């Protein structure tokens, strides 16, 4: 596949002004619906605690008058936020990096190698894609307990490195790459792994970016599983930590908002940075399969 370098030109259509105005009004309302919770959170994190709920009904809900970072300081004073953040970074980071390696190799094996049982196993991978984590959480929990992995990073990382959806996304992307590139590399005396690393991977950046973003988004916010397997704060990730923080008296909404802002910021930054590749990858994965 040759990724499109330039987006198709935007067609400008002349509409009657009334209809255009209605269109924009609809778009503004929709955008407000999506943005307002985030704006509410950011504004709330910067206000004194008692004003967060008091002003919730007015326009000031999304506009802090005298902004201060006191709530942020409070979060760090009340809980080991740095530890939680580090836990989330280690766990999600390892899942993403490990997932890129393992799933891309698996996808390549499905797309390009011939081996006994390949098609049957591909069917299994497809079936696994629709299986929600909740449905296997209990047996998985049992397994982790037997292995003595409760309250460890391992229990939060290892079950999720191999990922059926990621395998499938890589698989369909690799199918779309021109085979001649690899054949050229083989006749240029590059071995299988060399060909994969030097020829396939550099031409599959959109797929890698997509998988990285999707895995990151999912596991950064994963709540149920770490709630099951973590006990103390040592390996507790952010989603469990914020839930725990809410139950920690005294109840201070400004602090919770500050916690929330710090938790969401990496997601927004990452998405903005990888947005272009991400969209390409999703578009490409839709083309095959």
């Amino acid at each position, binding site marked *: 596949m*040759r990724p499109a370098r330039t987006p198709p030109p935007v067609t400008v259509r002349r509409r009657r002004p009334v209809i255009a105005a209605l269109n924009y009004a609809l778009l503004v309302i929709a955008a407000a619906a999506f943005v307002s919770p985030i704006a509410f959170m950011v504004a709330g994190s910067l206000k004194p605690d008692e004003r967060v709920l008091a002003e919730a009904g007015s326009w000031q809900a999304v506009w802090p008058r005298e902004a201060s970072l006191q709530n942020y300081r409070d979060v760090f004073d009340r809980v080991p936020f740095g530890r939680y953040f580090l836990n989330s970074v280690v766990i999600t980071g390892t899942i993403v990096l490990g997932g890129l390696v393992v799933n891309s190799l698996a996808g390549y094996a499905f797309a390009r190698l011939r081996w006994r049982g390949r098609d049957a196993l591909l069917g299994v991978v497809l079936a696994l894609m629709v299986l929600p984590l909740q449905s296997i959480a209990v047996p998985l929990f049992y397994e982790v307990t037997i292995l003595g992995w409760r309250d460890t990073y391992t229990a939060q990382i290892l079950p999720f490195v191999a990922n059926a959806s990621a395998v499938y996304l890589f698989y369909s992307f690799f199918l779309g790459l*021109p085979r*001649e*590139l690899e*054949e*050229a*590399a*083989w*006749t*240029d*005396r*590059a*071995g299988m792994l*060399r060909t994969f690393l*030097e*020829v396939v991977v*550099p*031409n599959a950046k959109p797929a890698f970016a997509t998988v990285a973003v999707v895995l990151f988004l999912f596991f950064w916010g994963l709540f149920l599983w770490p709630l099951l397997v973590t006990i103390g704060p040592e390996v507790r990730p952010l989603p469990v930590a914020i839930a725990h923080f809410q139950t920690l008296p005294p109840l201070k909404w400004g602090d919770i908002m500050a916690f929330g802002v710090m938790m969401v910021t990496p997601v927004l930054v990452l998405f903005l940075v990888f947005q272009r590749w991400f969209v390409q990858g999703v578009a490409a994965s839709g083309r095959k399969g």
Partner: protein
Amino acid sequence: MARIVFQNVTKVFMDRVTALDNFSLSVADGELFVLVGPSGCGKSTALRLVAGLEHPTAGAILADGKPLNDLTPQERNVAVVFQNYALYPHKTVRQNLDFPLKMMKLARPERRRRIEEAAALLGLRPLLNRRPRELSGGQQQRVAMGRAIVRQPIAFLMDEPLSNLDAKLRVDIRAQIAALQHRLGITTIYVTHDQVEALTLGDRVGVLQGGRLQQAARPEEIYDRPANVFVATFMGSPRMNVFRAVLEKTGRGELLLRSGHHGWPLPASCRRAGSLAEHIGRELLAGLRPEAFEQAAREPQPPSLEGTIRAREALGHEHIAYLDCSLELLSDASLARLRHGEDQAAPHVGDPDQPPPLIVRIPAGEAPDPGGRLSLRPHFEQLHLFGPDGEALPPG
């Protein structure tokens, strides 16, 4: 550099499609051998078998007597130039040329030397730091050639390397490839569907059809002495006219070619005349190329063939005329039936209600408009004769 030999190679895809059928061929060391045939004839498969990108179902492929069958593409040291070039899009031209050298684990100065050499040879110097997508089609083609050359492989395998270029560029680069190959002297197998490319480029040409080698010979021989009706009609454009005819012997011992109500005495110079005795009275296929006709005056002697012009194509220096005449000409469909065997349904070509035309080359300015009459004198010294099965009659 190596001699490449196919020994009874058969390749069947998915137990159903036979791409090559008991294919044997020997390509000499340093030779530029062109494999030509219609699409689906198995020519690319033959190339991919040498490269190790496919494995033969039966038979062996040898390089200098050593079997290649069990070697991976990496171990064969052949260089492939792909139809779409398959340049590494994320690498610069220099990195593209360097990749095979790096894989050979050559020392850096040697790699640099070889890249410089190839770049100078192919005029790639100013392009070395560009990426493939910043190059024109012709430049990409030269980079693909360069990537093959730096390797100093035992053989070049070229799979329709010019088919993505426009006509003018194709002619230029065709000449460059021939010059380059003769200069380097590396055994080359060149695959194309273009019969002009085959005839102009090849030291020898192999015509492939239905997975079988129809004929392998020097270009002149392919054109002048085609082994069967397929080779005769595939090589040459417009194609050879083929018509049903019968040989007869006159009372004076002359050979007479009879077709429809025509009867022409064959000239003594017809090189097959000596061995034709056994075919007298048999139904044969006769072939005359479009250039084997001369426009004849109606007087003083009556012309030996007359026709009405159905259509005409002006090529500038000459015209191609399509004539309705009384010869029993074979249509494309019946030619296809001949090569597939009677049992198989032939692809339907052309208008079944219209008899196939006689195709004739005429110097510009001499051709009447459509509807006009044309009088012709066939040159029977250029006559080709085939048996009813389409095989050429053995020469005398």
